[in-house]
C-alpha cells in the first residue's frame, strides 16, 4: 500500500526501509524519485549508482538500473557506466563520508572532468552507518564518537568544493525545503555536465543525539529557521555563513562535457584513418 510515486519508483518488497525513525534519507530519496518523475525520464534509462553507507542503501530501494558498489567509489563506477552508455541518465546517491572522505578524490576529478553524471549527496554531517564518527562535513566543535571533546577540523562545503573543482552545476538543498530541493535535483539531472546537489540531511540517531540537537522534528525546524539563499550566503564572511542552512544554486555553467569531447576524438580519428 503506497502512493503512485512510491509504487512506481521503489521496490516495495524492500520497504519499509531500514533507516531510523525520522532519518532524512527517506525524504531525500523521495525527492529524487519525484524529480525523475517530473522530468518524465524513462525509468529503464536511469542508472543509479551508490557506494556504501546508510545513504547508499537507496540503490537497493529504488527501482531503476542500480549498482550498489564499494565505499567511496560510486563515482568511479558511474564514470564507467557513462562512458560505455552515454545514453543513460547516470545518477549517484552518496553520504558525506562516502563522497567527501574516502571518495573525495574521485569527486574532485569527476567534477574537473565535467562528465555528465548527477551526484546527490545525502549530507547528514556524520558517518551514520558505522556509528557516528565525525565526517568531513561535521561542523567544528561538534561531537562524534571519534570526537569526544569536539571536532577540531573545519568542515567542507561540498557544494562549494564541487564548484571550485570544476563542476558545471552545483546546488544546495535541504530535507525541510522539499519542493525547492526537488527542483534543484531536476535542474541538476537536466544539466549537461557534472552536477552535484549537496542536500543537508537529518541523522537524529547519531548526529542529533551526540550534539543534543533534539529529534528529527527539531532538526528539520532548525533547517527551516536558519535557511538563507545561496545568493545571500556566499556574500557573507565564512564564519557567519557556517551556522546557516544554504538553499539554492552555486554554479550553473556551460563547460565542455567529457563524453561528448571523447566522442569527438573518436569521430576525428575514424575520419582520418578512413
Amino acid at each position, binding site marked *: 500500500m*503506497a502512493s503512485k510515486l*512510491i509504487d512506481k519508483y521503489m521496490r516495495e518488497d524492500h520497504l*519499509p526501509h531500514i533507516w531510523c*525513525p*525520522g532519518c532524512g534519507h527517506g*525524504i531525500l530519496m523521495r525527492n529524487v524519485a519525484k524529480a525523475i518523475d517530473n522530468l518524465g525520464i524513462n525509468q529503464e534509462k536511469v542508472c543509479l549508482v551508490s557506494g556504501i553507507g546508510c545513504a547508499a542503501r537507496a540503490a537497493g530501494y529504488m527501482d531503476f538500473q542500480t549498482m550498489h558498489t564499494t565505499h567511496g567509489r560510486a563515482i568511479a563506477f558511474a564514470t564507467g557506466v557513462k562512458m560505455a552508455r552515454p545514453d543513460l541518465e547516470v545518477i549517484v546517491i552518496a553520504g558525506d563520508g562516502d563522497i567527501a572522505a574516502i571518495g573525495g578524490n574521485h569527486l574532485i576529478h569527476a567534477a574537473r572532468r565535467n562528465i555528465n553524471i548527477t551526484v546527490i549527496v545525502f549530507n547528514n554531517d556524520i558517518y551514520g552507518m558505522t556509528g557516528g564518527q565525525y565526517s568531513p562535513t561535521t561542523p567544528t566543535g561538534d561531537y562524534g564518537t571519534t570526537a569526544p571533546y569536539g571536532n577540531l577540523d573545519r568542515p567542507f562545503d561540498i557544494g562549494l568544493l564541487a564548484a571550485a573543482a570544476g563542476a558545471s552545476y552545483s546546488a544546495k538543498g535541504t530535507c525541510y525545503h522539499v519542493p525547492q530541493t526537488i527542483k534543484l535535483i531536476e535542474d541538476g539531472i537536466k544539466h549537461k555536465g557534472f552536477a552535484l546537489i549537496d542536500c543537508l540531511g537529518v541523522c537524529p540517531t547519531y548526529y542529533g543525539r551526540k550534539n543534543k540537537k533534539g*529529534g528529527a522534528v527539531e532538526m*528539520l525546524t532548525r533547517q527551516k529557521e536558519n535557511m538563507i539563499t545561496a545568493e545571500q550566503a556566499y556574500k557573507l564572511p565564512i564564519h557567519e555563513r557556517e551556522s546557516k542552512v544554504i538553499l539554492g544554486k552555486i554554479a550553473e555553467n556551460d563547460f565542455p562535457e567529457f563524453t561528448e569531447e571523447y566522442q569527438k576524438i573518436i569521430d576525428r580519428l575514424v575520419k582520418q584513418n578512413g
Partner: protein
Amino acid sequence: MKNNKKLVINTAWCKGCGICSAFCPKQVLEVKAKVKIVNLDACIYCGQCEMRCPDYAIYLEDTNNDA
C-alpha cells in the same frame, strides 16, 4: 469546491517519528506510537505530511476516477 483527494495511512510503514504531525498546518494528525488522523475535517489536502514522511506511510490519493 469538491474535494477529490483522500488522506491514506499505511500504519505498517509508520515509525512514529512525528514529522507529519509537527509540520501539518491544521493539526490533523497525532503521533503517539504511530500516526493517527484526529481531525480530518480540518485537512486542506496540502500534502505537507506526504512530502516529508521519510517512510512513505502517509499520502494523498486521487479519488478522481470514482467521483
